[in-house]
């Protein structure tokens, strides 16, 4: 029943959003669709997590990891772009799987924005960090092989995060995707992109070993995320 309802909702909701974009907000169609894509790709994953059976232990461990990545973002607030959110998301995803990584990534965005201010950027951050976690979970076999591979993933994730947020910047201020302006935004954000990539590598080098080991230990000891 619930499943058919979800399918029905998606079957009605997605065309409805496209139609509203085409008829009502046609002058800013791309920006509207970008926001809709960000929201609609996060929602089904959140609902999938809701349906899954998870124990109180698993939930509390995830809450702790979210809180830790938020504290990291608050502590390093002074250096723009230098934040451990991606690193912690990737470490959790490698230890506990893609769904856990998605939840930690996307909810870190929500919780930290209660400190920095929620805005139209929140869905895009939820989307970017969530997908970074989900992908890390899917690739965990590869990422576990060597710390160097993990660091390459971290650097790429930093670059991808920056490029995604630039798409959103251009769409938000211009309403349409202008390649020239996107290139300019990417160039302007280049130092920030570098900081993202470098900080991800630094945090992964520092934390992947000790924190990863602790997560593996608690996973075995308390039987968490065994279905993953």
């Amino acid at each position, binding site marked *: 029943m619930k499943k058919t309802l979800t399918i029905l909702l998606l079957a009605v909701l997605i065309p409805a959003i496209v139609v509203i974009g085409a008829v009502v907000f046609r002058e800013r169609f791309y920006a509207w669709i970008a926001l809709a894509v960000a929201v609609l790709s996060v929602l089904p994953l959140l609902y999938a997590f809701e349906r899954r059976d998870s124990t109180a232990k698993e939930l509390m461990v995830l809450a702790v990891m979210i809180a830790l990545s*938020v504290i990291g973002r608050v502590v390093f607030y002074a250096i723009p772009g230098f934040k451990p959110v991606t690193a912690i998301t990737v470490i959790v995803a490698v230890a506990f799987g893609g769904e856990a990584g998605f939840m930690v990534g996307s909810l870190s965005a929500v919780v930290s924005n209660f400190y920095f201010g929620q805005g139209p950027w929140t869905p895009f951050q939820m989307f970017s960090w969530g997908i970074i976690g989900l992908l890390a979970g899917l690739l965990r076999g590869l990422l576990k092989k060597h710390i160097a591979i993990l660091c390459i993933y971290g650097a790429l994730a930093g670059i991808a995060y920056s490029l995604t947020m630039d798409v959103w910047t251009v769409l938000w201020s211009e309403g349409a995707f202008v390649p020239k302006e996107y290139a300019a935004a990417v160039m302007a954000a280049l130092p920030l992109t570098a900081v993202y990539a470098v900080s991800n590598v630094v945090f992964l080098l520092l*934390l992947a070993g000790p924190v990863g080991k602790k997560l593996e230990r608690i996973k075995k000891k308390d039987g968490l995320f065994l279905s993953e």
Partner: protein
Amino acid sequence: MAYERIHPAVLVAYFLSVMIPAVFTLHPMMPLMALAGVVLLLLLTEPAPPRVRTIIWMSLLFLAVVITNPLFNHRGRTELFFLNGHAITLEAVLFGLRNAACVIAVLLWCHCMNRFVTGEKWLAILGRHLPKTALLVSSAMRLVPLLRKRGEEMRKSQQALGLYGDGDAMRQLSGGAKVFSMLVTWSLDHAVSVSASMKARGYGLRGRTTYSVYRFRREDAILLTLLIAADALVLTALAGKALSFDFYPVLNGSRNALTVPGLMTYGLVVLFAPIWEGRNRLLWNCYRSKI
């Protein structure tokens, strides 16, 4: 009825009804009205005047958005001057102004939204539909101050033991990583013990309901109905091309029977919050003088 008593879902619906039409249309009146409304609202509700830094930052952002568009966009017929062989057109400058007004208006409305729709109100809305997500968010929000305090204690004790000096950057970084690692150990154990007490209190049993302090009252229903009616009118005006606006090649706004009602309705929606706030102020002052 003050903001605190309005149901959070109605508040969120209100802020979305203000921001979405301003962002996703091109009619220059929409962001201007949104900007005027939010300035009024801020004048009425902001406890302290804005800091100089905030004003400078906002002006820089405004200028940056205004300048970007004419630099990259050479459409439009009215040339102002030439820069590197490219025409800077009046239309492109005006389009940049519209974008800047929109960006600033949304930033300020978001600032107000963060003030009125606090974290726990978001959780009250989400809690019914996404209970596990809401639990994660609320536990994490409680853990942030707790873990910060813990981390600070650990850092101080490490420093007192002389293990974590204020010396060079490398020692500082490795000391920080060590404290973080200890914090992870402590908080994972904390998570396990919290979850044990959650289980003992029956978390996850079937048939349990959630409690919310926010009731959907009759006033909320009235406000929401009015809001939906206003939204429907604005959206109809937009769909009926009553509020279409072209910046290129020359400024050209379309007009039909729905243009004025559409703009007026959106203006009413935008001004509703400041008017409501002003009314409450007046009432409060009247009652206070009687007491």
